[in-house]
C-alpha cells in the first residue's frame, strides 16, 4: 500500500483571519474597573425613634468643607495624618469597668473613645466638596479599620484578616471554612466599622 498523504490545507490566510478578530477585540476592549469601596447606607426609619445618647468623647468628627479642607475634631488636619488620628481614636480603649477594652493598644486617654465598639466616626461633607477628596477620606478611614483588624487577627490567629478573607473565598482552601468564618466574625465584632455620615 502506498502511503498517500492528505493534501495540506493552505493555512496562509489564517493569520489574516486571526488579525481581523484581534483588531475587533482590541477596539472593543475596555478593561472595566470592578473594584471599589463597599458601603452600606442607613435605612430610612419613619418612626422618629429617640436617638441613643452617645458621649461626646466617643465621636470622632471629620468634616470636609467646600474647599476640600479637612477639619478633624475641630482642628485642621492634613489628609496624610487622618489615618493615624483615626487609628488612635478607635484603638484608645479609655473605658473602665464594663467598657474596658482588653485588646486595645491605645493610650487609654480618658478623654477619647471608651472602646472600639462605642467609637463612632462621623463624616460630614458639604455639597461643594469634590468627590475625589471624599473618596480619599473614606479610604483613609476604612484603612484605619483594616489596619486595626489585621493587627488583631495577627495577634489571635497569626495571619491577617485580608489573608483570612482570601482563604474563605478560595474554593481550594483546605482548612475548616466554618471555623474561619467564625474567626473573621469575631474580629469584625471586636473592631466594628461604625462610620456614620451626616445627611444634610
Amino acid at each position, binding site marked *: 500500500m502506498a502511503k498517500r498523504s492528505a493534501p495540506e490545507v493552505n493555512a496562509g490566510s489564517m493569520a489574516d483571519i*486571526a488579525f481581523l478578530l484581534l483588531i475587533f*477585540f482590541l477596539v472593543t476592549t475596555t478593561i472595566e474597573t*470592578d473594584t*471599589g469601596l463597599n458601603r452600606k447606607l442607613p435605612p430610612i426609619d419613619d418612626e422618629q425613634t429617640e436617638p441613643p445618647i452617645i458621649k461626646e468623647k466617643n465621636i470622632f468628627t471629620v468634616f470636609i468643607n467646600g474647599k476640600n479642607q479637612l477639619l478633624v475634631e475641630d482642628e485642621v488636619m492634613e489628609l496624610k495624618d487622618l489615618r493615624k488620628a483615626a487609628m488612635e481614636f478607635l484603638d484608645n480603649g479609655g473605658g473602665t469597668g464594663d467598657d474596658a477594652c482588653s485588646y486595645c493598644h491605645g493610650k487609654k486617654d480618658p478623654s477619647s473613645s471608651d472602646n472600639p465598639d462605642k467609637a463612632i466616626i462621623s463624616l460630614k*461633607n458639604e455639597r461643594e466638596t469634590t468627590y475625589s477628596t471624599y473618596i480619599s477620606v473614606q*479610604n483613609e478611614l476604612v484603612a484605619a479599620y483594616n489596619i486595626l483588624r489585621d493587627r488583631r487577627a495577627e495577634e489571635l490567629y497569626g495571619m491577617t484578616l485580608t489573608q483570612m478573607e482570601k482563604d474563605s473565598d478560595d474554593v481550594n482552601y483546605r482548612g475548616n471554612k466554618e471555623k474561619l468564618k467564625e474567626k473573621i466574625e469575631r474580629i469584625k465584632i471586636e473592631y466594628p466599622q461604625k462610620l456614620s455620615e451626616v*445627611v444634610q
Partner: protein
Amino acid sequence: MGKFNKKKSGNLPAINTASLPDIVFMLLFFFMVATVMRQNTLKIQNVLPSADQVEKLDKKDLIMYIYVGQPQERFQSQYGKESRIQLNDKFADVGDIKAFIAAERASKREELRDYLTTALKVDKDANMGIVGDIKKELRKENALKINYTTRKGDISENKK
C-alpha cells in the same frame, strides 16, 4: 542565461511566517478573555478616583451602574457643564433613579433581588452635592448596598 540567474540572484530567503498565526492567536485569546463588553455608552467624563482599600466586586450581573460626571464636550451645548447623572444610555435626573431601580429589580430573579448592589461610578471632579442626592434617593428606594467604584492606586493621585 536564465538558468544561472535563478541561482545567482542573492535574494534573502523569505522569513518563515508559519508561527505568525500562533502569535496572533495568543494575543487574540488574551483580549477575548480580558474583554468586558461595555453595556453603556458613556456620555459623560468618567475618570474614577483612586483608593487602595478596595474590594473586588463579584457577580457582575447583580450590579446597577449609576454614572455621574460632566457631560462630554459634544453634549455640553445641550446639557451644560454641570455634573449630570447617566442611567443606561441617557442623561437623567435624580428623580429618574426611582424608576431605574424598579426596572433593574424587575429584571432580576426574585431571590436575587436582595443582593443587588449599586455601583456609583462618579467622576473625581464631581461634587458631593449630586452624590448626596443620589444616596438620599437610594435610601428612599431601600437600595442600601452601594459601592464607590474606584481605581486601585494611591490616594495622592486624586489631588491632580
